[in-house]
C-alpha cells in the first residue's frame, strides 16, 4: 500500500525538486551579478570554501559580514524599542520630556559604541534610501492620523501659517546668515548666498508634533492642536521642495550668475511641484478608496492595498519631480475617510498599528544615524556660525509666528490669543527631517558640509532637549490652574460633573464651522463620491453581532462582580461618623482614580503611540449601563421610585430610571422607525435577553 502511494506521488515528487534547483540557480545568479558590498560576501564565502582544498570542514563558523547590515539594523531598532519600554514604565517621564529626547540619547549611545569599537558602521543612510524608504512612512503616518474636520475648517490659517511661515523662516534665516558670513572676522566668507539659503531651508523644518505629548494634559484647545499638526504636516513637504529647488539652482549656477528669469522659474516650479503633488495624491487616494470597495472577501490584503497605493502615489510624484511628500499626505487624507468605512475592523486596526510601527522604525533609524554622526570625527566647529544659527532660528520663528498670526487673527472667528501664539512659537522643535537633509547635502557642491551638519546637530540638540523639556512646565504655568490642590471630595465630584455636563452640552451644540463650503462638500460627497467609493449594503449585522458579543461578555463580568460585592454588603452607616483624615484621603483617591474621564473631543495625537483603550472600556461600561436600564424598565414594567431598593442587586448598573414605561416603549418604536442603530440593538437585545416579557408589547 505504501508503494502504491509512492507510485501515485512520483510525478509530483519531481516538481518540488525542480523548483528548489531553480531557486538555487537563481540565487547564485543574483549573487554573482550583484555588486553591493554586502552581497559580495556570499561570493567570497563560496570562493573561500571552494578555493582551499586542504581546509577541513569546520564545525563552527562565524560569518558576521554576511548578516551585518540587517543584524545591526535590527539591534538598533530593538534597542530603541527597549528604551521606549523603559521610558514609559516610569509613567511621569513622558510628561517631562518628549520622546525624541529618548531616541536621540539612544542614537548617541549607539554612536559612541560604534565609535569606541572603531567599527565601520554600515552605510544605512544615503540619499536614495532616505528619500525612498525612510521618509515615506513618516509622512504617511502624519497624514493618516490627521483629524480631517478641524484641518479643513482651519485650512486657511494652516496654509497661511504653514506655507508662509516655512518660507519666511527659510529665507529669513538664510539671508541673515549670509550677512553674518560676509563679516570677514568669522572666516565664513566662502559661503555664498545659495548655500546659506539652502541651510536656511533645511533648518527651518520643524517637528512640533514631538512635543505635543508633553503638554497634552494641559487641555490645549482644538485650534491650537490643528495649527501645530497642520504645520508639521506641511512643513516637511515645503522644506524638501525648497531644498530640491535650491540644490537644482546650486548645480546650475555655480558662479552666481542667476538671472531674474531663473528666480521666477524657481517660484513657478515651487507652486507646480506643490500643487502637482497634491493632485497626484488625491487621484491615488480615490483609486485606492475605490478598490477597497471590492475587497470584502479578501480582507487580508486590504492593508496592503492602502500602503501600496500610498507608496505608489509618492513614487509616481517623485518620478515627475513633483513633491512626493505632499502627494502621500494628500493621498492619506483623501482615502482615509472612505477606506475606514470600507475595510473590516481588523484591517483598520492593522493599518493603524502598522503605520505607527513603520514610521517609528524609520524615525528610530534616522535618530540613531544622527547619534552615530554626532560622535565622530567629521565635525567642524565655528562659534559664530553656530551661535548665530541658534539665535536666528528663534528670532525668525518668533517673527513669523507673531506677524502671521496677527494678520490671520483679523479674519478668524476665534482668534488666537498671545498665549497660544507663544506656545506655537516655543514648540518649534527641530527633528529628524533637518538632520537628514543636512546629512544628504552633496559634498561636491558644499565644501563646508561638515559645518552645516554640526550646526544642524547643535540646533536639534538644543531645541529638543532645552525646549522640549521646558515647554511642559511653561504651558502649565501659562495655563494657570487652580493651585488649590487639596480639593475636597465635594469639589472633586462637582468639578467632574460639570466637566461631563459641559462636554455633553458641547455635543448638543455640535460642530460649528463655515457652513456653506462644508455643506456643499458634504452634499457633493453624499451624492457622488460615497456612491462610488463606499461599499453597498455595509453589513450592519456585524455591528450588531459585535455589540452583542461585547455586551454579553461585559454583562457576565459585571454581574459577577456585582454579585460578589453586594454579598459583602455591610449595614448602611447611619448618621454622621467621624472619619479620620486617612479615610478621607483614601476616599478622595478612590474618587479621583475611578471617576470616568471626560470625553475628549477626539483631538489627542501622540506621535509614538496609539490612544490607549481605557476610553473604550469606559464607553462600553456607560453604554451597557444604559441598555441595562432600558431592559430593567421593560422587564419590571414599572418605574424605580426614589429611595426604595428596587429589589435588584444590579441597581448600580442602572443609569437613569425612566419615569414612565410608556416613554420607554414609545422610544423603542420610534427607534425602529428612525433606524438608529443603537436603539435597534437595544430592541434586538431585548428579544434575546428577555424572551417572555415583551409579549404584551405592541412592538
Amino acid at each position, binding site marked *: 500500500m505504501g508503494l502504491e502511494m509512492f507510485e501515485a506521488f512520483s510525478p509530483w515528487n519531481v516538481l518540488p525538486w525542480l523548483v528548489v534547483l531553480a531557486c538555487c540557480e537563481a540565487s547564485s545568479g543574483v549573487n554573482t551579478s550583484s555588486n553591493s558590498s554586502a552581497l559580495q560576501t556570499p561570493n567570497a564565502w563560496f570562493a573561500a570554501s571552494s578555493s582551499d582544498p586542504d581546509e577541513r570542514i569546520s564545525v563552527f563558523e562565524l560569518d558576521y559580514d554576511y548578516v551585518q547590515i540587517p543584524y545591526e539594523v535590527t539591534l538598533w531598532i530593538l534597542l530603541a524599542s527597549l528604551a521606549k519600554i523603559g521610558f514609559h514604565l516610569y509613567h511621569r517621564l513622558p510628561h517631562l520630556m518628549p520622546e525624541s529626547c529618548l531616541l536621540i540619547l539612544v542614537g548617541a549611545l549607539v554612536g559612541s559604541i560604534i565609535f569606541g569599537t572603531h567599527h565601520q558602521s554600515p552605510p544605512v543612510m544615503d540619499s536614495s534610501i532616505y528619500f525612498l524608504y525612510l521618509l515615506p512612512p513618516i509622512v504617511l503616518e502624519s497624514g493618516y492620523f490627521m483629524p480631517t474636520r478641524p484641518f479643513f475648517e482651519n485650512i486657511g490659517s494652516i496654509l497661511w501659517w504653514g506655507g508662509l511661515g516655512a518660507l519666511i523662516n527659510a529665507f529669513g534665516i538664510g539671508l541673515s546668515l549670509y550677512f553674518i558670513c560676509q563679516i570677514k572676522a568669522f572666516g565664513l566668507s566662502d559661503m555664498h548666498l545659495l548655500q546659506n539659503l539652502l541651510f536656511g531651508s533645511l533648518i527651518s523644518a520643524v517637528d512640533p508634533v514631538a512635543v505635543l505629548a508633553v503638554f497634552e494634559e494641559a487641555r490645549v484647545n482644538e485650534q491650537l492642536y490643528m495649527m501645530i499638526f497642520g504645520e508639521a504636516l506641511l512643513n516637511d513637504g515645503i522644506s524638501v521642495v525648497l531644498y530640491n529647488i535650491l540644490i537644482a539652482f546650486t548645480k546650475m549656477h555655480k558662479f552666481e550668475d542667476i538671472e531674474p528669469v531663473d528666480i521666477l522659474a524657481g517660484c513657478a516650479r515651487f507652486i507646480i511641484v506643490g500643487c502637482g503633488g497634491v493632485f497626484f495624491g488625491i487621484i491615488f487616494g480615490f483609486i485606492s478608496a475605490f478598490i477597497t470597495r471590492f475587497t470584502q472577501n479578501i480582507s487580508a490584503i486590504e492593508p496592503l492595498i492602502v500602503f501600496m497605493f500610498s507608496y505608489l502615489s509618492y513614487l509616481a510624484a517623485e518620478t515627475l519631480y513633483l513633491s512626493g511628500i505632499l502627494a502621500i499626505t494628500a493621498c492619506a487624507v483623501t482615502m482615509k475617510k472612505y477606506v475606514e468605512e470600507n475595510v473590516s475592523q481588523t484591517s483598520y486596526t492593522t493599518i493603524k498599528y502598522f503605520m505607527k510601527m513603520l514610521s517609528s522604525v524609520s524615525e528610530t533609524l534616522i535618530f540613531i544615524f544622527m547619534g552615530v554622526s554626532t560622535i565622530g570625527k567629521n565635525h567642524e566647529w565655528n562659534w559664530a556660525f553656530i551661535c548665530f544659527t541658534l539665535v536666528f532660528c528663534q528670532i525668525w520663528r518668533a517673527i513669523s509666528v507673531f506677524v502671521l498670526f496677527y494678520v490671520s487673527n483679523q479674519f478668524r472667528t476665534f482668534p488666537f490669543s498671545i498665549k497660544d501664539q507663544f506656545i506655537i512659537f516655543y514648540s518649534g522643535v527641530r527633528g529628524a527631517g533637518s538632520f537628514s537633509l543636512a546629512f544628504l547635502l552633496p559634498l561636491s557642491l558644499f565644501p563646508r558640509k561638515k559645518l552645516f551638519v554640526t550646526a544642524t546637530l547643535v540646533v536639534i540638540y538644543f531645541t529638543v532637549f532645552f525646549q522640549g523639556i521646558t515647554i511642559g512646565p511653561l504651558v502649565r504655568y501659562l495655563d494657570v490652574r487652580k493651585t488649590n490642590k487639596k480639593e475636597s*471630595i465635594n469639589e472633586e465630584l462637582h468639578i467632574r460633573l460639570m466637566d461631563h455636563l459641559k462636554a455633553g*452640552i458641547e455635543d448638543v451644540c455640535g460642530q460649528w464651522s463655515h457652513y456653506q463650503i462644508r455643506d456643499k462638500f458634504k452634499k457633493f460627497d453624499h451624492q457622488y463620491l460615497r456612491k462610488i467609493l463606499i461599499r453597498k449594503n455595509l453589513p450592519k449585522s456585524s455591528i450588531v453581532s459585535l455589540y452583542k458579543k461585547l455586551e454579553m461578555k461585559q454583562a457576565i463580568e459585571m454581574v459577577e462582580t456585582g454579585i460578589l460585592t453586594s454579598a459583602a454588603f455591610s449595614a448602611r452607616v447611619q448618621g454622621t461618623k467621624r472619619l479620620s483624615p486617612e479615610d478621607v484621603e483614601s476616599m478622595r483617591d478612590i474618587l479621583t482614580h475611578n471617576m470616568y474621564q471626560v470625553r475628549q473631543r477626539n483631538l489627542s495625537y501622540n506621535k509614538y503611540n496609539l490612544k490607549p483603550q481605557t476610553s473604550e472600556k469606559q464607553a462600553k461600561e456607560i453604554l451597557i449601563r444604559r441598555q441595562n436600564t432600558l431592559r430593567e424598565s421593560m422587564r419590571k414594567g414599572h418605574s424605580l421610585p426614589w429611595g426604595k431598593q428596587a429589589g435588584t442587586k444590579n441597581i448600580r448598573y442602572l443609569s437613569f430610571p425612566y419615569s414612565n414605561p410608556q416613554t420607554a416603549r414609545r422610544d423603542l418604536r420610534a427607534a425602529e422607525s428612525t433606524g438608529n442603530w443603537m436603539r435597534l440593538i437595544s430592541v434586538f437585545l431585548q428579544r434575546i435577553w428577555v424572551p417572555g416579557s415583551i409579549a404584551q408589547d405592541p412592538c
Partner: protein
Amino acid sequence: MGSRSSHAALIPDADHIRRETGFSQASLLRLYHRFRALDRNQKGYLSRVDLQQIGALAVNPLGDRIIDSFFPDGSQRVDFSGFARVLAHFRPVDEEDSRIQDLKQPEPLNSRMNKLRFAFQLYDLDRDGKISRNEMLQVLRLMVGVQVTEEQLESIADRTVQEADEDGDGAVSFLEFTKSLEKMNIEQKMSIRILK
C-alpha cells in the same frame, strides 16, 4: 432638506429670545441651524429621541440627565426658545454683563447663580430643592467605574453630604451647594467658548 435660506427672520420670536438669552444674532442663527438639524422630521420641536440621536451623549455618563434637563416640568417637547434657553446657561460671562446689572431686570441666564442652579438640577431629580443622600449616591454611581464597591460608594456619598451639609438635615440645599463651590471658577467651568 428644508429651505436653505439662513435668514434671521425665519427664527420665530427672535427678538424675544435674544433678549432673554443674550445671544448674538450670529450665534442665534447657528443655534437655529443646529436645532433644525437635530429635528429629524421637521416637527418644529425636539423630542427626547432627537436628542438621543446624538451619539456622543450615549457615552456620556450624564447623558440621560443632560437630555432631561432640556425638558423641564416633565414636558415631552422642547421648542427653539426652550432649547436656546438651556444653552444660554453656558454662554461665557462677559465682563460688561456683570457691570450693567440693572436691578429691575432678571438675572441673565448665564450668571453664576443660574449656572449653579442648572448644575444643581442635575442632582436634584425630584425637584425638592435639596440633594438627598440617595440622589448623591445615584450621581456617584453614574460617574464612577464599576470597580468601586457599593460600600465605598455609600461612604463617599455620606461624606460628600456631610461635608456640605451645614444645617444637619442630611441633605444639601441649594445654598449649601453654592457655598461648597464658592472657590471654584464656575463661570469658566460652565462656559462654552463657541456660544459667545
